[in-house]
């Protein structure tokens, strides 16, 4: 597994998500109001809704198309069985987002 710097944390406003492309892989990265960051697959397993455009609260993201909710930590859908692929991600001391692929 490799860790890639993908840009400054300031690229993602607090409470929102953005899609990044790293080495040909598309990843949605979320920056919560509490300052935590999470990374998941970009498309909702239901009908490919863009998860980065979803509403985020604590560590939950709600898909903008049909409101399915996922826990960003585990990738698990709340109250059902879908699972998102999650990636390890952290912020380096200089504020760079480091994503493990």
């Amino acid at each position, binding site marked *: 597994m490799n860790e*890639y*710097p*993908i*840009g400054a944390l*300031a*690229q*993602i*406003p*607090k*409470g*929102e998500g*953005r*899609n*990044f*492309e*790293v*080495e040909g892989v*598309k990843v949605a990265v979320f920056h919560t*109001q509490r300052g935590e960051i999470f990374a998941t697959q970009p498309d909702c*397993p*239901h*009908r*490919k*809704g*863009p998860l980065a*455009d*979803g*509403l*985020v*609260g*604590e560590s*939950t*993201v*709600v898909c*903008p*198309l049909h*409101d399915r*909710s996922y826990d960003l930590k585990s990738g698990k859908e709340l*109250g059902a*069985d*879908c699972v998102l692929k999650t990636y390890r991600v952290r912020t380096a001391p200089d504020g760079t987002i480091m*994503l493990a692929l």
Partner: protein
Amino acid sequence: MTKQRLVVIGNGMAGARAVEEVLARGGADLFEITMFGDEPYGNYNRILLSNILSGVQDKSEIFLNPLDWYAENNITLHSGARVTDIDRAAHAVKTANSTVVHYDKLLIATGSRAFIPPIQGVFQADGSLKSGVFGFRTINDCDGIVAAAKQSRKAAVIGGGLLGLEAARGLLNHGCEVHVIHLGPHLMEMQLDSQGGAILKAGMEKMGVHVHLKMSTTAVLGKDKVEGLAFKDGTTLDCDMLVVSAGIRPNAELGTRAGLTVERAIVVDNHMRSVDDMNVYVVGECAQHRGKVYGLVAPLWDQAKVFADHITGANPQAQYVGSKLATKLKVMGVELASMGVTDATEESDETVQFSEPKRGIYKKLIVREGRLIGGILMGDIEKAAFLMQTFDRDSPLPEERLSLLFDLGGPSQKVTIDEMPADTQVCNCNGVTKGKIGACVASGKKTAKGVMEATRAGMGCGSCKSLVNEVVAWFAGGALEEDPSVHYYVPCIPLKKPELITAIREQNLKSVSAVFKALAFDGREDPLSKPPLASLLLTLWAGEYEDERDARFINDRVHGNIQKDGTFSIVPEMPGGITSAAELRRIADVADKHNVPLVKLTGGQRIDLVGVPKDQMPAVWRDLDMPAGWAWGKSYRTCKSCIGIDYCRFGLGDSMGLAVKIEGKFRGIDSPAKLKLATAGCPRNCSEAMVKDVGAVAIGDGKWEIYIGGAAGAHVRKGDVLCTVDSEDAVLKLCGRFMQFYRENAKWKERTYTFVERIGLERIRAVVVDDADGIAAALDDAMEVSTAAVYDPWKERDAPKTANQFATLIPAELPVGDD
């Protein structure tokens, strides 16, 4: 106590339901449960295959018991495992790959399969179906049909029964020409009489399905693949695929081989036990009880209960006494419910009938000794819920027969639910009773959605959804005192809207994050509460509101409406539907320059540029150089208009001018739900002002009638006249005052059509027109402040509000030279 081993063969709707019922009776402590299922999944809702075929639902949405459920309940599931033998002497079952499992109690729930009549050429030499021929029973079948339909021009369906018609309707959605071949003299003979069949045929044909009656298929043509059908009358029909829906056959062979009595299916006693073996139970379509074999789900819910009561000892006396059959056709565009017999058989039977074939309406009831023994409702099935319940319970009918067919302002819905006994089945597909819904509401589920998810009510064919909603509302209403949460503005803050407003004002909370920190439990954020809070703060603080974009739905972050593929639609302002040649030319140029996939006139009298990717929106706005039309938000949307006094020979007022003024004043105002307005130059109402949230209709002499609470969307309601005023300025003033009152008092997403009914027209008129509360001036001022604070969000094209606001994909900034 050591546990007994319960083995279940068949992991379909009956088998899994029976196990659920056993678990519900504490069966986990009594039994070690093993299940075998031929299909390689957990249990799914077979009924919904029709929706999968028509593309209305997604495969992932129909699972009832996903694989986790088995693990969580300690059930050993052998999926994709076909049981081939039952050794009753050794108390063991054996699968195709020779797994042997022992049982103390055995449940057979193998259901049935599609019956394929032995038509010449339907099978290949190895006994499998010819390529292009399908049964319609499993997810597998469905996948095959959909894949084939995509390639096909012309599809045939043999069988004009319930399933055949559902298949035919589904195939239409894939763009095939569809032919239904039916042997009998009319469609759906099991459920309809000839008159009903004829009306149904007309309905199907109108939809585009070709129906051939009294046709006997003699051969399936084509060497390796279906190429057509040949009929007894010598004619042929070419087609490139064929769905055979000619009935079902119970999977009872296992029983025969094990020496159980099998007639049409495995014969059981009133405890759902094989008549030959005390340790073998049978439920579902493979069971024959009192000479009857069922092919619908409702009977198997009852059977599963009796089985569970008996085997767990919860009620050793439990007896199954048979079921009465009622069903609805799940064909989009046809409303059809049927129950019991289709024709009177005894001289004393009474038939109550109404038919209006032109409109596809047909209603027929057959009454014996004051009780309903059969019924057909087509085209208008309003009364179906009531009649099906009456039929099922064998309740005496009211003397006044007419009210059985039509609503004549009889007892209100509420009384009906009140009187409904707790064990009345509300959702037949999933066997959910009124009592069960009540228990679910009592356990804390306050929303219809929550209750539906927990009980699965309404998740079958969906036709009972509105009844489920009503029953939930009825229970939730009854629990008002104990549970105030249904009245909270957002679920995570225990305050009603007025109390929440007071708290926000007192604590000077100007951002959504500040509200969470100060008022939510533990300061926790709830994602779905963010947009309603943002909307409320905007209403309360207008220009002073601290706009945190993460609190807003994506539409409000980027000022367009998100589409199913993640692109957006762009609707520029066009007040009253008035545009100019120059503007149209510019729009056309923009559409060309940016390759906009679709240009569409909306129902709101403006132009929609559909399918624009997020990162292209700023450029499109720049080139359009028109103000935003706010077509995406919970906000003021548009004001439609008709031609009016300047041009129309009937015009009594300047509807166009007024629409432009209204839009100029209220554009962009946030509100709890959409606000759609219209003005009409006379009561001919060409712009539909009487069915808008707010409408103004000119009545002459400079006078306007103001309508509020109108709707013509998912709900249709004629607006109420709030008052008549005598100038355009007065229209603006009163509309604004009403809208502000609505903004401050409506629940989140409560449209005016509900708000006006909830608050009451008299009360609204008292506040807004007569100023009974003395707040009219305050409402007017608040609206002024709000309108002054609105700005055109499309200006963010030049000054984005957040980092990467319109980026669809950000390339990672990998350091150069890194490996």
